[in-house]
């Protein structure tokens, strides 16, 4: 059921006067070490951490395109809360948390991604280098193994061994206890041990 409406231009009072005036722009000087504004802060975080944040997400969701989307959204979420984060370390911690949280909800539609990958299982890279192919195979092996871990174990391993976070930092990032971090880490590491053994000295060091 659809009713017709006649629009009356010019009949409305102008509402512009009720709109709050534009935001206050404060001039913060860099020289005295004062705070960065949100744009500057995000740019810093981008320059220093973008690649690692995308790679962290790749460890969690595997697909690079999905990971880039997640990371991009996470940066925007940090920008939005910049004034409340109030300090670069907290901003970085929040960014990591956003990456993990968003990677988690992205995993909920992994079925589609997996079908896509299954169709494209052949390495996309131009062959010609044995080493390259070996590298691809190993990478697939590791990412496959991670994917088969329970979600918490995968998150803890990625934060522990890729991001080099302490147990306390991981506990805070994931909202779980340090004891839980320990047990997820040891179970996850045990699950990956066969791969370590297979790859042997290459990854265990001399």
């Amino acid at each position, binding site marked *: 059921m659809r009713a017709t409406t006649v629009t009356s231009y010019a009949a409305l009072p*102008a509402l512009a006067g009720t709109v709050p005036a534009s935001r206050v722009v404060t001039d913060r000087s860099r020289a005295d070490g004062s705070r960065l504004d949100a744009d500057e802060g995000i740019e810093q975080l981008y320059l220093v951490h973008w690649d690692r944040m995308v790679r962290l997400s790749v460890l969690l969701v595997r697909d690079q395109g999905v990971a880039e989307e997640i990371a991009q959204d996470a940066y925007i979420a940090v920008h939005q809360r910049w004034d409340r984060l109030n300090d670069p370390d907290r901003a970085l911690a929040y960014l990591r948390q956003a990456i993990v949280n968003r990677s988690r909800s992205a995993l909920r539609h992994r079925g589609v991604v997996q079908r896509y990958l299954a169709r494209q299982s052949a390495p996309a890279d131009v062959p010609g280098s044995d080493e390259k192919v070996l590298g691809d195979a190993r990478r697939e092996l590791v990412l496959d193994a991670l994917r088969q871990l329970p979600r918490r174990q995968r998150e803890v391993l990625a934060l522990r061994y890729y991001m080099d976070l302490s147990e306390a930092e991981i506990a805070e990032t994931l909202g779980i206890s340090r004891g839980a971090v320990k047990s997820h880490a040891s179970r996850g590491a045990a699950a990956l041990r066969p791969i370590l053994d297979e790859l042997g000295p290459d990854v265990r060091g*001399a």
Partner: protein
Amino acid sequence: MVPGPPSDPRRDGDHPVDPVDPDDPIGPDGTALRRLLDEAVADVRPADRLGEIRRRTAQRRRSGRRWLPVVVGAGVATAAVVGGVAGLGSLSSGPTDRDDAPAASPGTQLVQATAVYFVGDTPDGPRLFREFQPLPAEAAVDAIDQALSRVDPTGGPADPDYRTLWPAGAFADVTVGSDRITVTLGSEEALDRPAGVSAREARLGVQQVVYTADAAVARTLPIAFEHDGAPARRVLGVEVEELIERDRQYDVLSPVNVSDPAEGTVVEGDVLRVRGTTTESVDSVTWQVETAGGTDDVQQGIGAGTFGGEVTETPAETGGMGWEADIDLTHLDPGEYRLVVTVRGTGQTTDRPGRYRDTRTFVVR
């Protein structure tokens, strides 16, 4: 060269070579695991997205901008726009892509408009506003989990006028039973009232979860919060029962709420369909399109020919309090605009009669 020999220095300049925490040793297997994970993603070369991030964060700032009514030429001022009113039921699906064709790539995943509730301000205090977000199509517990990940501030609203009251990491797990949805809280912080939030507003925070979770499964189930294996007695500082019912009191939802367009929608065609809901049976819903006024010529846009319209129709016939209008955009230059939708509240759902509004920005290409 990939993979490098074990003695290779790490490829990432910002990756500490040997971050030793004496209380937190990682052991020889740890070193191997590090190398393993590093190698697994060392070849990932992320695309440069700084430009896109900048563009999107610049859009977010628009809430603080000055907006002016759009003035249109005299020729257009006589144009009529066809609008109408639809029932609430048909409004709640939003811009949904229900194409059942198998997805061919991650780029074509099934996406549907998912209702997420946030807190926004009105002249009568904070209220809940519903925002549709395009999220992968999910069902049951996955749908709730996903929608709550947007109530989490690491997700958050697209509309900068809205906010969420929940701390990051609040929602650890969700289960759906026959008589309840159980949400496990993953953070102590979620038990306390957030700083600067009134008791009344905190009650809205609790209802954010009830409304969002119920919408995700299209049922009206009560919510049970759990923390540390026991029912949570206090959530966001609000003393709660074991089962929290949907609060249907008059002062929970905003008197007016835009469903479409979504915040930041890019409009390619000549017509923008706008629609939404009201909580009162108002006589009319007015809308106006404004443009960002970045100059000092504040007065320039005000006067005759303001671009706006009115939807006056009979929700009674459809049983719902929905409104809908098609806005003709043919005369608008490419750029960013703001849609302002206003109802004059009659006091049915507010303590004070007055103007209530919701806004969305959109981009004309």
